[in-house]
């Protein structure tokens, strides 16, 4: 499924045509891939399109860098806040 989606985004129906599976079974797979963050689903008109999320490493790295900076800033702010309001 991911292999197919790596070439082009597809509707769930179009995806289902490639597999010897029932449509509900395909939907179940799509849901699992979606919950795991591998694909995004967009409603275009009456159809649901499945789109592979690219650049996983970039996303991972971006989030780790973001959180590192985020917590550094927040924890410094916490220190300043306590110093200001509470006698050492």
């Amino acid at each position: 499924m991911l292999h197919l989606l790596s070439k082009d985004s597809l509707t769930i129906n179009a995806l289902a045509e490639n597999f010897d599976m029932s449509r509900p079974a395909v939907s179940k797979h799509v849901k699992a891939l979606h919950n795991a963050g591998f694909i995004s689903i967009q409603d275009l008109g009456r159809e649901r399109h499945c789109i592979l999320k690219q650049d996983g490493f970039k996303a991972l790295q971006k989030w780790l860098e973001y959180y590192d900076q985020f917590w550094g800033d927040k924890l410094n702010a916490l220190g300043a806040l306590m110093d200001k309001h509470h006698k050492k």
Partner: protein
Amino acid sequence: MAKVIQHQLFYPHPPQLVWDYLTKPELMAQWLMQGNIQPVVGHEFTLTAKPMPEMEFDGTFYCKVLEVEPFTKLSYTWQFGPGDGSLYDSTVNWSLTEKDNGTELLLTHNGFETLVNMALFNSMQAGWLQHITKILTILNTEKNGTTPA
């Protein structure tokens, strides 16, 4: 790449005070975010931040308290996503140690498995993708703490 974020800071304040700033909504809002946190295992709360479309983030962190040891230990899940229902997992862990008339605070933010798995999948060659079910099984087994044969 390290998949764990860690920050250790020393504050010249007692653990009880630091604990309050970690667990009382009105105090937490002053340095972290707005959110109805309660130091009760199983309690669910959300934290509200600014959406970041470039990061595919809708501005809400979904949390559930996992562990509470008053003035010592606190951990909660920390999920985030683009707002389409899919969420990335992670866990935020706080550890407080009384030291030199103050508190050593250790933050560990880890458990980014869903982001890591996505990265792994995206880096795979097309041929690998045919074995996706097999690989998923192995990843899930590792996540559950057992080593695959």
